[in-house]
């Protein structure tokens, strides 16, 4: 694991000064930024993401590997990766009746659609009280509610394109102490975005009271940028604005060392190798007993990660494209070494 006290190379600070001049405050920054300014910052827009990185690198036929969580999990397990233990899979409406049998002996669990997207249709249960279940928010749900939720999943309510779906019941991740302390309910997850197997950017998504246990940034969750080289959080945003402390818990968000960062990078790269997708995001949670667990792979990762890191994605994607051209057969360790070397962030003052 890299040492916490990393010295920021001098040339990086020089680059910072140069870009600072460009981002001098102008009156229109209150309302918008000009396309020229954004290009200068290397910001990637949706159209560019799709046309330059997503469509050419992610063949359509591979999408099902990641859109179907059962297949992703099977692949990951074959690679020897740690994933959340599967308690059961419900495939037919009849199975909805045996939910309780599967749940027997499990105090906490998560029910999710195998083809869900954007965290839709995920039901998290923390504990039981008598016959009923308790959600992280403290809301009590009856076994009937759970069964209903399963039926909705099976009918395809949450799946992409409304196709029929299966319900997956799995281990409820018990987030490591460090991570629960910066998240209001809900377990924070780590998103690593990769191109051709090179980790390019990472962020931690922590929920707030406003986001209600969910970790979608546009619903009010926090996006906390992580330094690829060290696994230390460097900056945080809430609704696109810079923050330093959690809006509900008040705890500082900057300079936190994510445990087992090296393992996380390795997991992310293995995910890329096993799916074959060129451009993807890997979601990882850290369990307090089991360590990092791969949760899902996303073939269309969003763009908020560049806000959280304060760096335009293009600044990292372009070098990777060049590097990949130069050495298309680089192995896992080489790729990680490259990313760690080149994508080092400017750490907060107290670490320098």
């Amino acid at each position: 694991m890299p040492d916490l006290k990393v010295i920021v190379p001098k040339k990086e600070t020089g680059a910072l000064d140069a870009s600072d001049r460009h981002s001098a405050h102008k009156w229109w920054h209150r309302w918008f930024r000009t396309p020229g300014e954004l290009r200068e910052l290397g910001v990637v827009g949706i159209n560019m993401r799709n046309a330059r990185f997503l469509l050419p690198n992610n063949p359509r036929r591979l999408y099902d590997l990641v859109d179907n969580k059962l297949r992703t999990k099977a692949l990951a397990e074959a690679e020897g990766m740690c994933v959340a233990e599967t308690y059961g899979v419900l495939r037919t409406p009849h199975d909805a009746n045996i939910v309780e049998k599967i749940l027997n002996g499990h105090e906490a669990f998560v029910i999710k659609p195998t083809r869900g997207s954007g965290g839709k249709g995920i039901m998290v249960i923390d504990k039981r009280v008598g016959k009923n279940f308790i959600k992280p928010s403290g809301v009590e749900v009856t076994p009937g509610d759970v069964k209903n939720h399963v039926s909705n999943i099976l009918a395809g309510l949450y799946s992409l394109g409304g196709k029929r779906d299966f319900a997956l019941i799995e281990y409820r991740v018990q987030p490591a102490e460090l991570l629960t302390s910066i998240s209001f309910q809900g377990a924070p997850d780590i998103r690593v975005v990769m191109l051709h197997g090179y980790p390019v950017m990472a962020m931690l998504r922590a929920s707030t009271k406003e986001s209600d246990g969910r970790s979608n940034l546009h619903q009010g969750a926090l996006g906390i940028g992580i330094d690829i080289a060290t696994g230390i959080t460097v900056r945080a945003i809430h609704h696109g604005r810079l923050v330093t402390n959690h809006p509900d818990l008040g705890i500082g968000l900057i300079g936190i060392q994510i445990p087992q960062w090296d393992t996380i990078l390795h997991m992310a790269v293995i995910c890329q190798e096993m799916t074959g997708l060129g451009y993807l995001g890997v979601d990882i949670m850290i369990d307090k007993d089991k360590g990092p667990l791969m949760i899902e792979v996303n073939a269309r990762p969003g763009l908020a990660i560049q806000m959280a890191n304060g760096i335009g994605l293009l600044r990292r994607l372009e070098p990777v494209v060049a590097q990949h051209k130069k050495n298309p057969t680089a192995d896992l360790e080489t790729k990680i070494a490259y990313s760690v070397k080149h994508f080092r962030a400017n750490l907060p003052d107290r670490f320098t």
Partner: protein
Amino acid sequence: MLLIAIGGGLASYKTKVLEVPFWEGERVDQWLVEAKVSFLATGREVKARLSLPTDAVLKNLGQESGSLDYHYTVEDDRDEYTAVWSSGPRDEGQALYYRVRFKQGLNSGGEPKASAEKPDSPDVPKLPGSLGAAAQNIVTRAKGVSADPDSLFVALFEQINSGSASQEYVLVKRHYEKEGMASPNIAMGIDLLGLAGIPARLAYGVILNDENSGQQPVPLIEYYDGAFWKVRNPNAPSRIPDGRELFVWHRGGGPLLEVSGGENSRVTFTVVKDRIPLATLTDLRKSPLFISTILALPASERAVFRYIVLIPLGAFVVVIMRNIIGIPTLGTFMPVLLALALLEIRPVQGIIMFSLLVGAGLWFRFLLSRMNLLVVPRVAACVVIVTLLMMMMGVISFQLGYSVGIKITLFPMIIIAWTLERMSLIWEEEGKRSAMVQVSGSVLVAVCAYHFMKISQIQYWAFYFPEMLLVLLAGILLIGRYTGYRISELIRFKTFSNA
């Protein structure tokens, strides 16, 4: 590039060589009125007779007929013309077409017409006992306030049309209604005119409005004022028929349509405003390019294309709004359908209706969600509720005197049900703010698409130069390769600051 070249090339060939006006302003407005005779053949020899507008035959107004394997002749009976189609034994549904073209603003064909011989004085209608006396009273009174047949006609029909008619009118009217006539008012008017010694007979006209296709012939009355036969619309008795609004198709008494060897026969009219001069059109039909125009189709089918050619335009607007501006919408092409509905209803009323419908529907949808229904039945239940809401709105707005309520049925119902479903899901999953943002985004895009499709120059191009759609396609493909920022992203990333 190739597409632009092909599309632009075809269009310029059409303008240069065939002289189809490219700009709408150069247009020559023409009406094309098409009569469609349809009936169910019963397996015997078929003969169909359709009375024709006299002017069409006399002035040779680009008339033509269309039918498959029918023998077609025009019969002339003392200046009354009839189209006659005949054929051997036939089965199943048959459709015969007859088209007339004329310049806009030409006379209506309902001008006073001198009669060679004075018509026989009309048969006095037989009305039983007290009815006869009542009718006689009406006529006497009307004669008292009028000077000539024209003013008598006006006086009689003003009484018949007014809701507050005298006892006698009500009595006589009820008799005609009891007889089960298609239009009791007109039958009664003709008989009353007959009682006053004025010969009168039924005529038929077509309303010159290209918005309702497949309209029924409008019954008119032709009466003899001592020297001329005159045509008037009984619903507007004091107005002389206006050639810009009404075209008199059939006069001179006798039936409009006669079919032997078929049942359920009827004639419907479709009116289309044509912007290509007749001579050019005939050239166009002979040219090989003709396949690329929709003008080959019968008018009633063409009327459908009036809207279909607009859909790609709407889709183009959606592409711009989503990929260049970045407005979030509910479903990709829902706004296009909404915009099409707005073309039929006026937009302000349309949007009010839409919001009411969605608002009320959403409320019911939340009631439904408490019942924990499965997805498909829940959407189906939404469809039922939307239907009921539409009916309710129709009834309420009719009571209040607005006719828009009835038009609301044009909203694509399934689309609304799905909108409700998706909206309530987003409401629950992402909060009401993003649900509202997406719905208002959809409405905004729909309004933009509406205004785009409403531009008459655009409509003109889409309809007369369908090859211009290739240019549109090229534009869409170009946007498909656009990798720049969306305007919404300029705002989204406004707080972007370097680390």
